[in-house]
């Protein structure tokens, strides 16, 4: 065995990955070669430092919960993970109760709202939040061209703390619709946009299974926002979208 062989095999030798014969050949060379022995010691030192000093990142317990939730279809899953996280916090739970009591006075929830909430939940659960991931409205908007027979207006709310993170094609109201995804801290908001063919959506806030949903119609387009965000932040988001879509001319 020569110097080159040794230097090639040294790492495997230190890792205990060499077969016995090669191992013995190598040790024989080391015994008679000072420079290779020095090299081995330096490598040994390096490997020891790497193995002892490198920080190892650990998964948060939250991630395990998130994965376990994602593996279970909706039916067998009593509550999505974020709501379980909510419920563990007493204050949030109380807030939820108050909200629920307030909004459950509303008689029945329109099928469209239920469908939009189901779309939102599914987008989070099957890890199919986005088809196009981008924080740039000028990337997201063209992405829909050719996939839809209309062009949704894409507004940016990043300065207000609701960055756009991407877009997706979804199905709502028996047709393909654009879904824009906005983020607020660790929460997501789906904003569905599609042309209106019937009466205007009433602009009324619904709460279903802890999700907020609100639909409205403006300039011939239907908008439906859905999120697990708290009521105030959700209302802020809707207001900003409405303001922005008024400012600009619709449907070019």
């Amino acid at each position, binding site marked *: 065995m020569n110097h080159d062989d040794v230097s*090639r*095999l*040294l*790492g*495997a030798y230190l*890792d205990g*990955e060499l077969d016995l014969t090669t191992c013995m050949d190598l040790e024989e060379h080391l015994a008679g070669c000072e420079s290779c022995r*020095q*090299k081995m010691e*330096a*490598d040994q*030192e*390096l*490997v020891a*430092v*790497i*193995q002892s*000093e*490198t*920080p*190892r*990142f*650990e*998964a*948060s317990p939250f*991630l*395990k919960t*998130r*994965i*376990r939730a*994602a*593996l*279970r*279809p*909706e039916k067998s899953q009593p509550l999505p993970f974020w709501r379980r996280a909510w419920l563990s916090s007493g204050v949030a739970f109380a807030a939820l109760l108050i909200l629920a009591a307030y909004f459950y006075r509303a008689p029945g929830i329109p099928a469209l709202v239920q*469908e939009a909430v*189901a*779309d939102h939940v*599914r987008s989070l*659960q*099957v*890890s199919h939040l986005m088809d196009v*991931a981008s924080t740039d409205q000028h990337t997201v908007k063209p992405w829909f061209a050719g996939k839809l027979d209309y062009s949704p207006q894409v507004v940016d709310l990043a300065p207000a703390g609701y960055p756009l993170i991407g877009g997706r094609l979804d*199905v709502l109201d028996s047709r393909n619709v654009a879904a824009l995804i906005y983020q607020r801290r660790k929460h997501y908001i789906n904003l569905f946009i599609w042309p209106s063919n019937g009466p205007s959506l009433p602009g009324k806030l619904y709460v279903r299974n802890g999700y907020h949903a609100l639909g409205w119609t403006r300039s011939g387009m239907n908008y439906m926002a859905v999120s697990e965000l708290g009521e105030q932040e959700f209302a802020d988001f809707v207001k900003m979208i409405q303001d922005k879509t008024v400012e600009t001319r619709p449907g070019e």
Partner: protein
Amino acid sequence: MIEQHHDGRGDPSPPEFEQVFLPHLDAAYNLARWLLRNDQDAEDAVQEAYLRAYKAFSRFRGGDGKAWLITILRNVCFTMIKKLRSHETPEPFDEEIHQAAGQSDLREVFRQKANAETLQSAIEKLPDEFREIIVLHDLEGLAYKQIAVAIGIPIGTVMSRLARARGRLRAEIVASNVKQSSP
């Protein structure tokens, strides 16, 4: 009716899957975190990998679950890296400094500089494939054979890639803050 869009086609039970794969969660997360460099991306990648593994679970024939999961995970990670860093240009690498770094007179320099902090920044500077193999072997303790299966390369390549990765890591450590220490 839309409810049937996902799942529901003779999928394995989650507990059975979890028993095999959840014990590897920390290893998976550690690799993803080192490759992607932030918590959020790493968590997303790991979740995506578990979902893919779950969908493909019927094709898993026993054997090394860890290597199997890592194969899926690294695909997810490298796809994300391509998207996230398409605009980045890799840092230039000074071969001369780096070749000299193994020499014995530099061992003292190495000793002085080798601590958790320089090590972390040195590993972050490594090319993705070097960082990956260091994490899999030196942090997660996978054997060469497991790494060969996970990455899909011959064992000989595992050996040489790991050796090059360590050599470059040593060089990065020796070269760290080189401006302050040189006259």
